[in-house]
């Protein structure tokens, strides 16, 4: 039993551990004290990381659906079939699309991007989780010119002030929560902006309550309070930032509470402050505005560009950052460069020997609704996209779907061709954490049946579309990644051991562009009830959780107990409406109505009704395309 050092496949914190395996396969996980992020610690997910690959319903051989009958096929037959059908569709002028994945490696994402752009000549390229985090990244780009974080998890531990926009950090990113706890234990001020009195907000010294979707307004209040304190040295601020006067003007009428003043003082006084922002699947404009406001706050208080201080966007899935870096977006190229970036275009054309399509493509939701042929790499769109089951219906209507998957997911079940690939424990490759740390996956055991590493399958598909190159290992692919996007050039061959390499974009040279956009608030005025779709990632339907006996228990029991879903409300509201826990309520909005069981909590803000992301489909008629909406609530 030889321990194999590898990178955690769950959230984007970038922890590492040893996978333990014997002749029979994976048997366990051992922690590592020498890993620079983990430092001997793991969360519950990490401790059971071996389970899904072992217990999961694994795909073992290529499957082809011929005339409504699913048959196993040889790899060669499957490749021929996929290439033949996609070429037919392209020749007939029908649109095709490609979905990369936030849980695939950099190498797999790079190759799937190459397949789409150079092979299929389309920018219909996206990954599902991007639609959730794109507004956040765009908001950071508005202010900083780039979205990349400026602090690491270890920096959080030595912060004096931490501003946390709280989803539920303790469950979404336990390692980051651990760093926050360590800082608080050392005496740091923790300021949380939250609609629920969560675990982290109970540890905090200052809680700024916010209605969901309106966090940006609270940040405006903080900004106004900071400006009110009269920032020290105006010349210094103007040397770093532009738009200071306009910002001041824009914040004139903002209400400032006593807690905001207190929090503003903590932020201004700190020599090291960190700002943590989770991407939640809210709506685009408010999320973008929230991120921009937070970045503005960090910039104007001097915490951007200062060592040990800065912003950290908390990405949910392990390789969101990597997929962005590989250019898995309809309007971006590798390096997350804009599609019309001439230098990058030229570099890729030289590298791939093909002209690239210039028109922006469709995003993930539109791809599902309008293409005739689709390649899906390691993802299950109905579980990830806000549109939920409507994504399943859209998938069902696509003429030709190819799934590259390790697990039998609903998407793989309806695909016309299934190409079985190795899980994280059986393949080589790299993952880029939210900090920008590129780390290795290593092979702990062989893939089941005839499954092959994803990079090999994608390399073969590329070859069938005349954009092949010979790769003898995942490292060869990484080498090419470095040629396509220079920030990955330094990664090349990662050394043995943990040795993660950090990718940075380098200073953008420009000043921070301060600004708070005016976006109408999502949540209605006082008095009305607001129904909110909780934006946390639905881990319960991620195959690495749902196939793990230990990790799936919580989620499965909840789904079993509430087959019709539930909506959460606070005790006071339940008493006013006269509904008992577990009993149904009728919700009516401008979009429509629905009846759903209630779950009563004591920690929720009055007036807020929260539906977990997992149960969003049950209230699709009430929410429509919104993430929050005013509702009338009555006993059903």
């Amino acid at each position: 039993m030889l321990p194999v050092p590898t990178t955690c496949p769950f959230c984007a914190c970038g922890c590492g551990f040893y996978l333990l395996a014997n002749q029979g396969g994976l048997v366990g996980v051992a922690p590592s004290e020498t890993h620079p992020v983990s430092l001997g610690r793991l969360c519950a997910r990490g401790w059971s990381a071996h389970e899904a690959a072992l217990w999961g319903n694994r795909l073992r051989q290529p499957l082809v659906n011929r005339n409504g009958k699913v048959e196993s096929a040889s790899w060669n037959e499957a490749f021929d079939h996929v290439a033949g059908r996609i070429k037919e569709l392209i020749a007939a002028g029908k649109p095709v699309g490609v979905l990369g994945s936030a849980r695939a490696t950099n190498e797999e994402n790079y190759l799937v991007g190459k397949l789409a752009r150079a092979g299929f000549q389309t920018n219909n390229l996206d990954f599902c989780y991007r639609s959730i985090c794109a507004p956040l990244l765009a908001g950071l780009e508005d202010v900083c010119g780039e979205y990349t974080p400026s602090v690491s998890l270890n920096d959080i531990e030595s912060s004096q002030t931490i501003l946390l926009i709280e989803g539920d950090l303790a469950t979404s990113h336990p390692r980051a929560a651990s760093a926050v706890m360590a800082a608080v234990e050392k005496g740091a001020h923790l300021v949380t902006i939250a609609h629920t009195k969560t675990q982290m907000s109970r540890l905090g010294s200052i809680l700024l309550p916010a209605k969901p979707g309106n966090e940006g307004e609270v940040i405006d209040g903080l900004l106004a309070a900071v400006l009110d304190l009269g920032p020290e040295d105006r010349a210094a601020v103007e040397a770093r930032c532009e738009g200071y006067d306009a910002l001041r003007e824009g914040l004139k009428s903002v209400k400032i509470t006593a807690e905001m003043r207190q929090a503003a003082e903590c932020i201004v006084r700190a020599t090291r402050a960190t700002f943590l922002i989770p991407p939640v699947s809210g709506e685009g404009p408010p999320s973008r505005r929230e991120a921009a406001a937070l970045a503005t706050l960090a910039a104007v208080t001097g915490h951007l560009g200062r060592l040990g201080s800065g912003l950290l966007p908390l990405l949910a899935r392990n390789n969101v950052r990597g997929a962005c870096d590989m250019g898995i977006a309809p309007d971006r190229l590798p390096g997350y460069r804009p599609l019309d970036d001439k230098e990058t275009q030229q570099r890729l054309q030289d590298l791939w020997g093909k002209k690239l399509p210039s028109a922006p493509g469709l995003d993930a939701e539109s791809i599902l609704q309008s293409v005739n042929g689709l390649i899906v790499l390691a993802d299950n769109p109905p579980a990830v996209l806000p549109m939920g089951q409507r994504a399943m219906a859209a998938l069902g209507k696509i003429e030709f779907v190819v799934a590259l998957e390790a697990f039998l997911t609903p998407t793989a079940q309806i695909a016309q061709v299934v190409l079985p690939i190795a899980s994280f424990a059986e393949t080589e490759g790299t993952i880029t954490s939210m900090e920008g740390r590129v780390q290795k996956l290593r092979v702990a055991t062989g893939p089941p049946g005839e499954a092959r590493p994803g990079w090999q399958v994608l390399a073969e598909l590329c070859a069938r579309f005349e954009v092949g190159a010979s790769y003898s290992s995942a490292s060869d692919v990484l080498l090419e990644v470095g040629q396509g996007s220079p920030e990955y050039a330094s990664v090349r061959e990662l050394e043995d051991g943990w040795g993660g390499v950090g990718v940075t974009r380098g200073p953008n040279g420009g000043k921070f562009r301060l600004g708070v956009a005016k976006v109408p608030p999502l949540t209605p005025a006082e008095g009305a009830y607001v129904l909110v779709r909780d934006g946390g990632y639905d881990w319960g339907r991620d195959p690495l959780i749902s196939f793990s006996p230990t990790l799936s228990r919580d989620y499965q029991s909840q789904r079993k107990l509430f087959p019709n879903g539930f909506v959460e409300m606070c005790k006071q509201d339940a008493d006013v409406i006269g509904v008992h826990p577990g009993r149904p309520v009728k919700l009516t909005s401008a979009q429509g109505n629905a009846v759903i069981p209630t779950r009563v909590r004591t920690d929720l803000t009055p007036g807020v009704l929260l539906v977990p992301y997992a149960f969003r489909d049950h209230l699709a008629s009430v929410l429509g395309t919104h993430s929050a909406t005013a509702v009338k609530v009555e006993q059903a």
Partner: protein
Amino acid sequence: MVFTIPKEGTTQWLEKLLEAGEVIAPVRGPCGDVIFSALRSPTQVLWDFENPLHPPKQFVLPQTDPLVKIKLNGQRHEVEPIHDDAPRTLFNVRSCDVKGIAFLTRMHEADPPDASYLRRARNLTIISLACTTPCPAGFCVCTDSGPFLSAGYDLQLTDLGGSFFAEVGSEKGEAAMAKAPELFRKAREDEVTDRTALEAVAKTRFGPETCHFGSAMRRISTGRVQDALWEKMGDWCLECGGCNMVCPTCYCFSVKDLRQNGAWVRCRMWDSCQYNAFALEASGHNPRAHRKERMKRRFFHKASAQYYTRDSMVGCVGCGRCIKTCLGSTHMPAVVAAIRKGKWHE
């Protein structure tokens, strides 16, 4: 019976032990961590090391432990037990871990005895290396499980400088020495004195961690720990379960069938009493739905008089692993101190 073996003789001795079966010992892992692993050569073994974070209990109680194979033969299910009879030697294991395995064995011997565990334990020879320098986070002196032991091992080695002092604790220990009898000789009087002196010195070299179980036990056993305190401490736990995984005395498990090559393999897997769904009932009722309740349960099992009476020791061997691996800050010494003082982070 006490003996010595010269240091240069250990390689030869280990070669003999390797001929007889697997030898598990602390080695330097691929990324610099010290880990317990099966030796490929005697030179891999470490003699001067800090105790690995991942405990050796995995060799008696694996994280994934296949128990029986269930096959469908026509209309009948055939059940075939899976036996792990491999003879193993656990070499250079530390005192706290020896005590941990002794605790586990007593638990698994209790009625009804656990055949799968006991088969592994019976085939395991434990050769320990006493701690002449306690590890920085260790507090085994508070739990009577180190730095030196007086029982529980098959053979206890002590580093005397040029040689190792060897104390025989069982017939298995004698048999391990008998693999290379020419290397061992009876210990001299001065060597016995040296060993005793080393133990006395080691006891003065502990780090800052302490754990006063006595007064905490009085409060826990009589329900005198305020609910508000459990609640407060619960907020500092991130439910990672790491404390259970690395604890040499934790043995809670769940059972799940694994489909493999046309059969089912019933596996026992490590589980954590700190996980929300650990005690969840099929009805949907969860007797320990809140973190404070799960934490209360854990520390009642670890440090109540009720369990102390049953197990004749607290459920802690003072290895300090939970201090290192706790994602929050609710490790054993911190919680015991809070219970004793009646306050947390104040």
